[in-house]
């Protein structure tokens, strides 16, 4: 079992490491892109911060609490993007025949697709989210249970985004130009969960719980960590459900991926 998980992981790291080594040849551009990426994503949070100059709370949450929510989802999507973000390019890999090439190699296809041209500079997003998250964390009243919950939140949240990236990218097996659809759900979803869900109508929260369960990325676990009762009246046990949701999502994504690969039809030339 351990082997089943570990081997692909090792293969991923090996391939990624070679890409990192190859790309450091252009050291200057690496730093420029990384710092640029950091600044661009940084500006994102500044928007929320400015907002709080005119309001004192957003949906009943303070700036630090919103920052915690923002950092939680930001960290999850940034980690997912760093490791599996390349899968957005599945359609072009299909068109260029790169997928055919990967299919005749002895590393799991999904690992190859995700590790292809691994770019360490996407770590900028992770750092930015980590800064916001770290700042907000300084004001949390930590207990062992809350620390464990925070760790579980980051891992589960990343897995949920992993699954979304993969499942939606699989649409490209059937229609080549569905990358935008996938973005709407992943990055769009991330934007929604950057805010306290109390600012949205109840239907949105229900959708983010039962349909596209992004509320489990940060919202429910954060309520636990911040010591808040659920403002929308969901039972307390929803707050510990994130790992279960993450596993289920990963299962669904794996299934969609397998189906996509079995239906893959390559190109005519």
């Amino acid at each position: 079992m351990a082997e089943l998980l570990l081997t692909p992981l090792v293969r991923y790291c090996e391939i990624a490491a070679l890409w990192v080594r190859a790309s450091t040849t252009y050291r200057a551009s690496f730093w420029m892109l990384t710092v640029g990426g950091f600044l661009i994503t940084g500006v994102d949070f500044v928007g929320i911060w400015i907002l709080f100059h005119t309001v004192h709370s957003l949906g009943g949450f303070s700036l630090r609490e919103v920052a915690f929510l923002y950092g939680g989802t930001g960290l999850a999507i940034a980690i997912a993007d760093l490791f599996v973000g390349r899968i957005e390019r599945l359609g072009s890999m299909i068109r260029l025949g790169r997928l055919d090439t990967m299919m005749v190699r002895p590393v799991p296809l999904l690992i190859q697709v995700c590790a292809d041209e691994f770019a360490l500079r996407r770590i900028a997003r992770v750092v930015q989210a980590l800064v916001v998250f770290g700042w907000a964390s300084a004001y949390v009243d930590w207990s062992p249970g809350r620390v464990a919950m925070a760790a579980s939140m980051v891992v589960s949240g990343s897995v949920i985004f992993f699954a979304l990236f993969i499942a939606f990218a699989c649409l490209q097996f059937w229609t080549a130009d569905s990358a935008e659809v996938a973005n709407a759900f992943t990055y769009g979803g991330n934007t929604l969960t950057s805010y306290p869900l109390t600012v949205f109508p109840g239907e949105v929260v229900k959708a983010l719980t039962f349909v596209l369960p992004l509320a489990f990325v940060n919202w429910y676990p954060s309520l636990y960590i911040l010591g808040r009762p659920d403002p929308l009246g969901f039972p307390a046990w929803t707050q510990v459900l994130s790992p279960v949701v993450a596993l289920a999502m990963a299962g669904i994504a794996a299934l969609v991926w397998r189906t996509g690969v079995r239906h893959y039809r390559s190109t005519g030339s």
Partner: protein
Amino acid sequence: MGLIEARGLSRTFTVYKRSGRLNRTRTEVRAVHDLDLAIEPGEMVGYIGPNGAGKSTTIKMLTGILVPTGGHLRVAGVDPSRKRRALAHRIGVVFGQRTTLWWDLPLRDSFELLQKIYRVPSDRFRTNLAEFVELLDLGDLLDTPVRQLSLGQRMRGDITAALLHDPEILYLDEPTIGLDVISKGRLREFLRTLNAERGVTLLLTTHDLQDIEALCRRVIVIDHGTKVFDGALTELHRQGGSTRTLVVDLVDEAPPISVEGATARRVEGPRQWLSFPADASAAPLVAAVAAAYDVADLSIQEPDIEDVIRELYSRS
């Protein structure tokens, strides 16, 4: 048991064509239909057929890229699409039309990445690389990014890439496409050596019949997804050997010549091509033509493999 075994192998593609503004009609393209194959270890097989015949589709099924829609297929004892990764260690694939290398990496880095991917032991990797670099004359190119290589250089890189892990089977889909005469010759020489010295089984598709004549004792011809010939190259020659051609240059243009014992196959201005049975003597035919027409020149063509193939294609 054969190394490659297929029975009734088929692959259809469902394609939707637009008909009218909103309607789409659904059609089934039978890319490969009811194909039987049996290839033994160490064979060099030429796989030919006109454009769209189903050659690439067949190779994609043999490598596990495409799941067949029908039939039974075993390569090295396994079902390729279900055991893709296990099979990967035992096969090498070269797609002439596109590179399997990484566009931005120098050849050397591409090869190292492949070493990691296939887990080639480093001493094995070094000897293989040294050998292929030597045989394919890649020495000066190792530090060049793939995107800067010419087509012929890239092809040599691709072939090396497909062989670093010591595959038993090498599939080559149009490996000589776009190569000049000398490069083609070298590549053929290399493939011959590979087969003779390492015992690698080769299956290659091509539109250049000289590749086949230079390399393959066995030829499989496919057309519209169906196998139309499978046998020795000499057999193919013999089939085509049934007719020879008399090329007649008339003084003036004329309607197709009609004489006893021959049929006009082609007319281009004053030049006409007459085919006649190979076992018949040309002398009476020449006499008959010369008696009835004003002839400027005459020549006789022995059967050509291109003609044989052309006839096979048009028959099906």
